[in-house]
């Protein structure tokens, strides 16, 4: 698999973290979602340009 230099660096660092057992950490910035959501519509907003300042 060919990776960019940046991706290869990230890969090497991540592999070392896996080997060293240092990948675990805090998750306070992550949302809590239902593991499986049945029968629902899920909406995702994709960003556009910021609204110009009013006035």
């Amino acid at each position, binding site marked *: *698999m060919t*990776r*960019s230099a*940046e*991706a290869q660096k*990230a*890969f090497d*660092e*991540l*592999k070392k*973290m*896996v*080997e060293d057992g*240092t*990948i*675990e*950490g*805090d*998750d306070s*910035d*992550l*949302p*809590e*979602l*239902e*593991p*499986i*959501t*049945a*029968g*629902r*519509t*899920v*909406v*995702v*907003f*994709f*960003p*556009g*340009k*910021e*609204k110009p300042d009013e006035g």
Partner: protein
Amino acid sequence: MGVCETKDRSDAGAQYNIEQFANRLAEEGRDRAEANAPYIYLDLLASRESHQGYGSELMFNVLRRADRENRGLVGGAIDSASDYYAQFGAIWLDRYRQPGSGGPAFWPPSAVHEAVRMLDAIAEQVRKGEITLSLAEGPVVRGVLRRVRFPETLLTAEGFSSTIKTRHLGPGDHPSGSPQTVHAGDGGGGKGKDERTRVGITAAHPGMSTEQVRRQLRHLIGRLRGIKSVSNVYATHALGTYRGGQEASYLIEYDGNGRARAAMAEFGLEQNQESVLMLEPPTGEGDAPSTDFSFGTRLNVESRARMNTLLGDLGLGGWTWYRQRGSGHSLRIACVPQYGGTPEGHRRDMEAVVGSLAELGLQAERLDTTVHPAVLWRDQGEGRVTYDSVSGSTEGV
């Protein structure tokens, strides 16, 4: 002061009141103060033959809602359903009634939380591949459920008995001890639309403060809840990765129809969003795959950042990190044809992700599901459905 938020506070000849609740809680060794919590009223009905019905179908979602809002549940359980409800902690309001005889039953908030934890524990077993469920393997499902003493109707109601297959991606056998082949999925579901599991995903919305997000959410939720045909509106803050960056975002889920779509279009227009993506239940036409990778542990910011770099290098445009209650982190990647995705490309991408994870020695489990992506656009273009074409229809509904 009543304890139920419903206009109908009577059932099976009983009037619910705080004193009854408090006394029964004390008899059960629980905190009397929980009687003062807000309660949601339910019809706890289930047919004797199928153990499915109005009550059982409602139960799972309502349990989760009650838990999120720190509410209790109360309602009348018919006798053939009472054993079912007793399995996840119903307290009979009439102390002389017991499971098997039916009657008014209730769950204080702490019991709701315990029930949800139990459900999550089972879901986690399913997710980890410790239980592999398939409609084609009914006897297996029943056997598993007997073993864990879990009400089958709940699983059925929530879609857990859909084809759920996980694949162990790390080296060697699955952590559960079962061999690799047990967890091999078919990668695409491929079952009838009513049997499929739908998934959630987060939004990316840059440049917004937390308070702005909350203000917008309150506004949109209020609008959605004002639409009669929309129910179970759920929203939460989220963290999405889009075009290489992680951004403040939010997730909205609901059960609804075209009225809700119009509300989304209006909101997208107001917020000057480039587009709004709705992952709807599959229809059999225009459906696309979505894949979750669950790591079974909480990954720190540094490791996720490196994962983001790898995923971007694979050519993926967007994905979502999330966590499950009481569990580790997961990664969700949906194929959206309107953004140039193809099912074939998605499968190739997922195999590339699988390869990278295996090469890293990072264990994860894969869950493939099917969704129906629908996109509304701000700007016109060939084949695009724009906000203008669907908005303006929520007035007075």
